[in-house]
């Protein structure tokens, strides 16, 4: 087994870091979109209106029933035939957002349903309409319930952005593939690529764990000391 070839690292390190930057930016854009959009999708899935509920269900089931890789390829290679021409990065943002919104809407839905029914009733008895009750009473409690799960989705999205390579986004994995194929330095390039993923992914995991602790469900005053 050879050791890391430092000359190769020096030569291609810049390109790999650029790939990492794209990976991080892609992750952040998609997680923000999905965190926000998944809430209305969850509400649509629980709507009293049959048609809305059905549309929501079809969306979620189509996304859950097909591979993310195929969804991305479909958006980038098939949709232009229907007049939707997207550059690689936009296609990746769209595909990943559609996918993660669907999954995360299910998480929100579970969280909202986990808030006891009496909370809705108590809100109604103090004069709130349903919309206000949702925003002021139900959502804050649901968010604490779903934080650990959403945190895990965040970490898994970070790694799933590698699939954007299928639509030629030069994120970290794709960059590593190109460079290693050109230089034949598979061991060095892929090892460095892995280290770069870990250098962001591990702190991100620590961040998620910290968030979970902060969002604990005990609802007590933070005791000093």
């Amino acid at each position, binding site marked *: 087994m050879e050791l890391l070839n430092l000359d190769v690292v020096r030569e291609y390190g810049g390109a790999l870091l650029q790939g990492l930057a794209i990976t991080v930016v892609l992750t952040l854009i998609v997680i923000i979109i999905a965190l926000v959009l998944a809430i209305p999708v969850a509400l649509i899935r629980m709507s009293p209106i049959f048609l809305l509920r059905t549309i929501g269900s079809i969306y979620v089931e189509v996304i859950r029933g097909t591979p993310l890789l195929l969804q991305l390829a479909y958006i980038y290679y098939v949709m232009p035939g229907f007049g939707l021409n997207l550059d690689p990065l936009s296609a990746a943002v769209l595909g990943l957002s559609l996918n993660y919104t669907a999954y995360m809407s299910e998480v929100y839905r579970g969280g909202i349903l986990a808030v*006891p029914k*009496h*909370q809705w*009733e*108590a*809100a*109604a*008895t*103090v*004069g*709130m*309409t*349903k919309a*206000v009750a949702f925003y*002021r*009473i139900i959502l*804050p*409690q649901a968010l*604490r319930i779903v934080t650990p799960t959403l945190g895990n989705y965040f970490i898994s999205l970070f790694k799933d952005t590698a699939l954007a390579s299928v639509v030629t986004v030069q994120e970290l994995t794709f960059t590593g593939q190109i460079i290693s194929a050109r230089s034949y330095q598979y061991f060095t390039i892929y090892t460095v690529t892995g280290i770069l993923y870990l250098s962001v992914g591990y702190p991100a995991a620590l961040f998620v764990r910290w968030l979970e602790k902060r969002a604990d469900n*005990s*609802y*007590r*005053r933070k005791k000093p000391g």
Partner: protein
Amino acid sequence: MIELVDIHKSFGSAEVLRGINLSISVGEVVCIIGPSGSGKSTLLRCINFLEQPTSGTILIEGERAYYDHVGPVLKARPEKDIARVRRKLGMVFQDFALFPHLSAIGNVIEGQIYGLGIPRVEALQRASMMLERVGLTGHGDHYPAELSGGQKQRVAIARSLALSPKAMLFDEPTSALDPELVGEVLDVMKSLSGDGMTMVIVTHEMAFAREVADRVVFVDLGKIVEEGPPESVFDNPQNERTQTFLARIMRRS
């Protein structure tokens, strides 16, 4: 103040209320007693429309409330109309149903601000008055999880009172409490009745009902079987089912 006319309520094929007629006047304290599953909680929850009756009419302050009759169907009115009537009626739940993510004072101002639109400063003033009224001065910044059951229930009462309701509904307010905490909640309720508050109380506390109620209503199998002043219902029940129920209750205590 509150009038129920021929209220029926079914859950699927189970008929829980079968023709309830009940009229409660201003300042009156009515205790509803009866075996579990008799429909007494459902009856209470119909008054503020947490349950929609299958048929019948509800009048609050002489006005038809919550829904209109369209042929045989009851059609709920727009949400705002329902909220407008509902906020005249405070409600206290068996399990407190406090908002766990808000402090005690937060619980008491929440409905004032986001239900009635009262400015925050005013709401805070009122909230501390209400907490004082239920004997919880100094507990404003405690979260529900940090309070005892009796304290939680008193916060819940303060939360309702802060909205200046015309009447208060209590759904077994002491059933979830440890025995030694029941008294503090009943004391607050007694003082409310002393102030002339209209109250409808579903309860198993017979001694309390005897002391505070103007009228006791015995419900069984979805019907009002017997009603009257506490002395007559408790000491001289006319109906056989009332007698059986009371005999069972009294033997226990």
